[in-house]
Structure formats: structure tokens, C-alpha cells
């Protein structure tokens, strides 16, 4: 990808290249500055959190905030991470398990309501999660799923599934029918062809779908706030809020928590970045 970028850049005028780079630098700075400030604050000793010093690594840098977040039993950081991981991984897995066959059906089979069904799935994406909050809450009460991870996962699924189905369906559409037919003749059932031929070929699309579903659940706050009320069940976005007091917020540990929490997402992103770039463009460029 980088190769293509530079190749293309070579043909452009120096002014254009300068402009492009300038815009990129400004965009990167705008994106990175808040993150860097959070890192800086997380490294400050508790006495100088509100210092006006702008250096990235403060002169009296300390890992005390990290230590308190990671090892203070009163904070419960590991519980939040554990809860978040569990909710996010299950959301991603269930989204994949349900979205892949659904998307395959939308891609390959003719059935009544196929087109309206697809459009309906798309329409659900137009509503912000906050708008669905009240109906979701009422449904979860009816199902006795308040203060239950499954209730939260169910809510996240309602956001992640339609999106995953659309992404996967777009990808399955690019896989020629001949491959399944060859598999049928070789001796598989339609289900066998799906598992042995289609799914192995769809790793890029499956990876990004899983990543998006994971991230949907990982950083979500509002629904979690409504569904989970017991502290022991808090996911990290809820947990970090407990670090805020009514009169005083301990910004050092708060920032340290923010930094630590972004690590799994960064790692996941790096692991799947190869697929992310190819996966997002595959539907567009593959015949």
C-alpha cells in the first residue's frame, strides 16, 4: 500500500506533494496531540497533574499512576479489563458466527424478502445507539438481562451484526460461484462448501468484521452505563469513570488507565492491519 502511495506521489508536482504532506502532518498532529497529553499526564506525579509544563515527558516523570491503576486492589482495573475483554470477544465471536452464514445466505440464495431484509439491516445503522437506549433497556428488563453481560452483549450484537452482515456479504459476492460448485462436485454439501472453501477464502473480511465488532463493544460507554449497574460487572469505560470523584478527579491514574486500555486495540489493529487495508478495498476492486 505504501509502495503504491509513493509511486503515485512521484508523479505529482512538488507543490502538490508539499500540500499533501502538510495536510497529513496537521491531521496527525490533531489526532496525536490529545493522546500525547494523556500520556504526559499519566506520567506526572500526583502533585503536579495541573502543571502548565508542556514537555512530553515531565521532568519528574513517574510510573506511580500506572502502579496504582495496575496494582491497587481498590481500583479493580483487572476486573474492568476482564469484563471488557469477555464482552468484546464474545460480541466479536457471536457476530462472526451469526453474520457469516447470514451474509452467505444474502449473497448466494434467492428467498422472499432478501432485498427488503438487506435494506432493513442497513436502516438499523442509521439510528444512533443512544436513540435505541430506552427500547433496549425496556426489552432487557423484560428479559431480566439488566446487570447481565449477556444483556450487554445482546445490545452490542444489535449494532455489530447488521454491519458485519453487510461487510461479509459484499465480500462473499466477490467469490465466484464456480468454487462452490466445484466443491459440490468434489463431494461437499452446501454447508461443507461454505466451511471448506468460502470461509478459508474470506479471512480478510472475517478479520475486519471481528475487529469492528470487538471495537464496537470495547470502547462503548452509554449502553454499558444503562445495562450494568453493579460495580463488579463494570467494563473499563464504566470503571474509569469511577476514578472521577464528585469534587476531585485523580487525573494521573485516570490517564494511565486510558493509555493501558488502548493497548489491546492497538495490538489487534496492528495484527489485522494487513487485512484491514485489503479487506476494506476488496469489495471495490475485485471483479
Amino acid at each position: 500500500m505504501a509502495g503504491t502511495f509513493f509511486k503515485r506521489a512521484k508523479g505529482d508536482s512538488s507543490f502538490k506533494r508539499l500540500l499533501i504532506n502538510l495536510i497529513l502532518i496537521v491531521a496527525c498532529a490533531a489526532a496525536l496531540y490529545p493522546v500525547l497529553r494523556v500520556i504526559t499526564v499519566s506520567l506526572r506525579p500526583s502533585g503536579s497533574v495541573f502543571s502548565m509544563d508542556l514537555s512530553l515527558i515531565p521532568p519528574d516523570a513517574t510510573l506511580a499512576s500506572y502502579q496504582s491503576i495496575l496494582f491497587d486492589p481498590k481500583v479493580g482495573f483487572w476486573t474492568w479489563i476482564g469484563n471488557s475483554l469477555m464482552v468484546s470477544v464474545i460480541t466479536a465471536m457471536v457476530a462472526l458466527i451469526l453474520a457469516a452464514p447470514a451474509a452467505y445466505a444474502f449473497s448466494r440464495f434467492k428467498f422472499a424478502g432478501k432485498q427488503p431484509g438487506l435494506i432493513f439491516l442497513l436502516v438499523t445503522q442509521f439510528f444512533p445507539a443512544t436513540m435505541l437506549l430506552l427500547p433496549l433497556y425496556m426489552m432487557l428488563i423484560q428479559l431480566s438481562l439488566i446487570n447481565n453481560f449477556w444483556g450487554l452483549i445482546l445490545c452490542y450484537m444489535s449494532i455489530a451484526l447488521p454491519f458485519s452482515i453487510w461487510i461479509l456479504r459484499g465480500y462473499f459476492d466477490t467469490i465466484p460461484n464456480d468454487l462452490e460448485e466445484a466443491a459440490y462436485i468434489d463431494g461437499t454439501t452446501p454447508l461443507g462448501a461454505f466451511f471448506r472453501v468460502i470461509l478459508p477464502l474470506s479471512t480478510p473480511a472475517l478479520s475486519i468484521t471481528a475487529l469492528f465488532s470487538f471495537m464496537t463493544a470495547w470502547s462503548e460507554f452509554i449502553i454499558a452505563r444503562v445495562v450494568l449497574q453493579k460495580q463488579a460487572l463494570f467494563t473499563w469505560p464504566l470503571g474509569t469513570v469511577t476514578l472521577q470523584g464528585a469534587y476531585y478527579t485523580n487525573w494521573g491514574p485516570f490517564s494511565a488507565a486510558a493509555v493501558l486500555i488502548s493497548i489491546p486495540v492497538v495490538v489487534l489493529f496492528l495484527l489485522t492491519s494487513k487485512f484491514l487495508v485489503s479487506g476494506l478495498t476488496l469489495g471495490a476492486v475485485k471483479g
Partner: protein
Amino acid sequence: MAEVRLVNLAKAFGPVQVLKGIDLTIPDGEFVVLLGPSGCGKTTTLRLIAGLEEATGGEIFIGDRKVNDLPPKERDIAMVFQSYALYPHMTVYDNMAFGLRLHGVRREEVDQRVMEAAEMLELTPLLARKPRALSGGQRQRVAVGRAIVRNPKVFLMDEPLSNLDAKLRVQTRVELSKLHMKLGVTTIYVTHDQMEAMTLGNLVVIMNQGIIQQMGTPSDVYDRPANKFVAGFVGSPPMNFFPAFVDGEEELFFQMASFRLPVLPDHRAALAPYRGKEVVFGIRPEDVNMGGGDGAVHIPVTAKVDVLELLGAEIFLYLSSPEGTFVAAATSLSFIARVDPSTPAKEGDSVQVVFNLGRSHAFDADSERAIY
């Protein structure tokens, strides 16, 4: 190996009737080519035999078994697709072994059969490669290899050579022919390329608009076409057709727009019922010869050379003879002659040609069926 029998086979996609009741028996061990223009139903027929489409009427037998309701995997067939349909995530070896493994063949036997097929198709050095690392010709061989390791009763091939370049196509055609001679498995091959059909098939089935127009050996369909469609479809350049009026009393004549040809004694009986009626006279380009003729049977016809195509070993002359008034609907008579490259003709020349009437054809103007 098995005989394949189609009985009144029909297929409709919604309101469109693609196959209109086909009856066809493919003898055990034959190489049969289904030939026809795009949309004639040949690929649909193949897919019905494979079990990839469901028939809307009729029966399909492979051997003694009626297979209409069997899924593809239970029909004991193998298919080579136009796109080859190799599994991109598997190596050549795995592509070939996939079907055997699914059928629960022991690992040693899988290995032995894949190696044998690879050896036969010269694929042994490529076994560890993925399809994307192969050339078009190699992919085609893997697709054939995947079919032959299975040892099926019937091979189905859907235009397997159409993605190859001209040279490789000729080479692969010969290889397929040899392979069939060696394995002797009943093979049904779909193509729209008549050169492939004529060279590969023991039997050629010509289809059009969902109907079998003729089935026969390549020389049958070329020399004795059953109707005007077959006559026009088989052969390149196609047969020349002239609207003709059957005239005369004792001796019959074809009266064309601007010239008149005698009906040979052998053909008189067949044409007698058409006296006074319009028919279609057909003659292949290679049966239009340059020269003055003998004035009796081989009557010379004067024509103008509109276009001359030199193909190296032969010349195609696109000729036209002046319009006449004998047949009301006649347009200017254009026809093609396939002549020796030494022929001294130039574009714009007026030349004399004679028709080899012994190899001419006549078709009913309405039903288009061959009269002789």
C-alpha cells in the same frame, strides 16, 4: 464409465424455457461435444447432468441410475469449469486430493492417485504451488487433474479451453484427445468453438434455442446437415445460402436472382415436390471454384470480388452477383468462395465461378429442414 441418457429433459428459468425437451443418449466411453451459439442451452444441459441445476421436466440417467434427485457428489461425475475453479487457498496437490479426501479415500491411495495424475499431466514439480502461482495452461491442467484423480464415470467439461491463447488451445486440445483415448471415460464437452467440436468429438450434438438440431459424427454434421441452422453454424466461413425457385418440367433448375443452376439427377426425386416453390440452396465456400466450367452441369456464374482475405494457405473471396428479378424477395446475392492462394483475383475484379453441385444442399424454405 457409463452411458448418459437424457429423456425429454426440460429446464426453465422463470418464464424463459431454456431447454425444450431434449432426448439424447451418449454411449459409454464416447467423447461427445455439445456445440451451439451462446444461449442455446448447452451449458445448462451440462449443469443439469452435473446436478448444479434442477430440471423442470424429464429424466437424467447416468448408467442405469436415474440421478435427477441426487446431489452432484452422488452422481459420480467430475467437471472442468471454464474458469477452472481451483481452490485458491489450497496447493495443487490439495486441489487434486480434495475430492478424494471427501470421499474417505485412504491417505496412501490419495497420494498414489494424485501422483499418478500429476505425472500424466506433467504437474509433479508444481504440486506444492498455489493456483495463483501457475500460468493459465498449468491451471487448466490442474483442473483436468482434479477431475481425473476421482476416476469418475463421466467427465463434464464446460468450455475448458476458452481462456487459453490460440497456440496453447491447439496443444491442449490434442492432449485432451489423447487423455480420452487413454482413459476411455464418457466425456461431455461444451463449446461454442466448432474447431474444437469437430476435432475433439466422436459425436457432435448441435443445439440451438434449447433444442437438439442434430447429433452425429463431425463429418455427418458437416457433410449432411439436418437443417439450415446446422449447415450455417458448422463450417467457417459459413455455408452460402441463396433463395431459389425450383423450376422446370423433366429437368429441374434452381432459379436464383441472377442465375440458374441445374438440379443433378441424384437430387431430382427429393426436389420434385418443390417444383414451383421456393427453397434455400446451400453451397459451402470450398465448393465454389474459380473457372469457366463445362457449360452443362457446371455452369459458370459471373461475380464481382468485393473483398479478398488472404489467410496464407487459402483465400476467402467475398463475391456478389448482380441482382436479378426472378425471385421477388431476393437481395443481391453475396457469397463466399474459399480458393487456392495462387488464384489471380483482385478486389473489384469480375470473375467466373462454378458451383460443385454434387456437394450442394437444399433446404425447405419454411421448416428449414434439409431436402437433400
